[in-house]
């Protein structure tokens, strides 16, 4: 049997801890971790674009938020939607939006790409914010969590927060595994090649536009999965879930963890959510309610992280292990 790499061992231990959490934690923490895992799926979907394909999208929240609205539309008034119908519908809806937006934005690159993704996401934001199709700026309620009934049989119920937790945990692992497989395949090699040198990939005969578009759609659909569960858990969808602050926040998660690694995206999502929670809990100092104005410190933290942590939190670990090794053994990677 192959020896377990230390990184893999740590990963498996973390997974075990997550799997055992509901037996030790209170309701509040179980729901908090559910939320963190949902954001981790969201962050991984963006990492596929930013970290692997080299597409810096500043409009990823559009696909996240749209899925929440799809769930709200799919549910009959005051009743629950069926999970097995509404989840694929939400992911397909977000994927379709990603196909339309992607076909336009992928005609650009670099700075243009960043601005155009942001602009189109804001267009979706204004669609829901300014019109009355889904409650406008006030948002829309989802009165009941989706039911997982297959012909009358219910394997689990999302109304139970522990069940909800395990469903999201299983999905987190599935998405992680699926993305790992995708990235290990020829397709994955091609998109990493596109990030490194798109000209060369094109001259090798790959139609890079199609590869990028497929990536954009996959990332959009996965963001939709995260958005669906975020809306289901919260029971409420507002235009703010589509807002560019959300897009910027999830981008920060990817970078904080260390982009181009799926574990980094998960780690970044957990770290950002915990940081947010920690900052919100800060007391009033000198007449200024720091907890209420936590974004001030969050902004400062982001500036600080960009200047001092170019490789994210995972880069911090690499740095530490390099320092521990003898100088001549240190690799320059």
């Amino acid at each position, binding site marked *: 049997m192959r020896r377990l790499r230390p990184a893999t061992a740590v990963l498996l231990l973390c997974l075990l801890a997550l799997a055992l959490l509901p037996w030790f934690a209170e309701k509040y923490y179980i729901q908090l971790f559910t939320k963190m895992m949902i954001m981790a799926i969201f962050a991984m979907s963006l990492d596929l674009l930013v970290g692997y394909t080299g597409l810096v999208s500043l409009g990823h929240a559009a696909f996240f938020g749209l899925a929440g609205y799809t769930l709200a539309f799919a549910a009959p008034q005051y009743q629950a939607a069926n999970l097995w119908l509404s989840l694929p519908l939400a992911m397909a809806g977000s994927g379709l939006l990603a196909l339309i937006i992607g076909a336009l934005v992928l005609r*650009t690159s670099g700075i243009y790409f*960043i601005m155009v993704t*942001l*602009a189109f996401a804001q267009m979706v934001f204004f669609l829901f914010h300014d019109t009355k199709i889904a409650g406008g700026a006030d948002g829309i309620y989802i009165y009941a969590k989706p039911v997982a009934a297959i012909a009358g049989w219910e394997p689990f119920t999302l109304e139970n927060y522990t069940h909800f937790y395990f469903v999201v945990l299983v999905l987190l692992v599935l998405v992680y595994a699926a993305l790992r497989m995708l990235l290990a395949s020829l397709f994955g090699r091609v998109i990493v090649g596109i990030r490194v040198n798109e000209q060369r990939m094109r001259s090798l005969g790959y139609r890079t536009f199609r590869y990028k578009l497929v990536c954009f759609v996959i990332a959009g659909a996965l963001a939709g999965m995260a958005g669906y569960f975020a809306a289901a858990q919260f029971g409420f969808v507002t235009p703010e879930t589509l807002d560019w602050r959300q897009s910027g926040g999830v981008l920060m998660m990817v970078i904080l963890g260390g*982009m181009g690694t799926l574990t980094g995206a998960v780690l970044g999502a957990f770290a950002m959510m915990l940081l947010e929670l920690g900052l919100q809990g800060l007391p009033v100092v000198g007449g200024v309610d720091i907890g209420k*104005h936590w974004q001030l410190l969050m*902004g400062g933290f982001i500036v600080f992280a960009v200047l001092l942590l170019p490789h994210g939190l995972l880069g911090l670990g690499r740095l530490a292990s390099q320092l521990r090794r003898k100088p001549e053994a240190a690799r320059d990677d």
Partner: protein
Amino acid sequence: MDANTFLIQVLNGIQYGLLLFLVASGLTLILGIMGIINLAHGSFYMVGAYLAFSLSQYFGSLWLAMAGGVVIAVAIGLLLEWLLISRLYHRDHLYQVLLTYGLILMFEELRSVVFGDDVHGVAVPELLRASIPLTETLSYPVYRLWISAVCLVLAAGMYLLIQKTRLGMVIRAGAANREMVQSLGININLLYRLVFALGMALAAFAGMIAAPVASVFPGMGNQVLIVSFVVVVIGGIGSVKGAFLAAILIGLVDTFGKVLAFEIGGVQLLPQLSGMMIYVLMAAVLLARPEGLFGRRA
């Protein structure tokens, strides 16, 4: 729509477009010349508006507030470039996006701490409070005309500065080849700092002159930022001329989109959908010319 209403809407559209130009021209210059994508540009529009609000109360005059506000905006711009932005020239756009995103959070929250979350109004200066009567019921405020005039003067000044002066020549040369300009003995870092501060001051000034007509409210900067992005994308990065034409175009499209209740195939569209018109325009430009109307083909 009769001729007078049409005239008023054209004037409003041009005035909005010219204001957008002030914000977008700085954005496109900083992008084109320095290669920096600055999300905090919209925050300076907000900073300008809040400076106009607070300083005009302090001085009792919007004119003094504008003068003081521009000085403060330039100072903040220089400080930001020196402390933060100058460290990003050789880094990927991704980090520029994140750092300036962090700055937005800080500016917005500082605004909330200092001024609260209420909407404020700024009085139009006494001198420009009059209106020009068009018919018995319709009139047009002088202040709006003044805004357009000031923006046009600034646009002309910018054109002359960049195209006709030695400083402008060096700035253009720096955009083409930074190292070469540096090796000719020109302090390019100082130059970039000035360009950045100038762009920020333009955005802040736009916020100041807009404050009496658009009021001062939280989130105003972000709204302008996104529309300015659309302007820059349509006009082409680095092209001040493109930004000018695109800004006027967006101003008119946005204004008329709100006024005309448009129908497609007999179906009455929601008037709220007019807010999306400018994005449809952007999509059309992207399909035809992905590099923008006046952008260089990559």
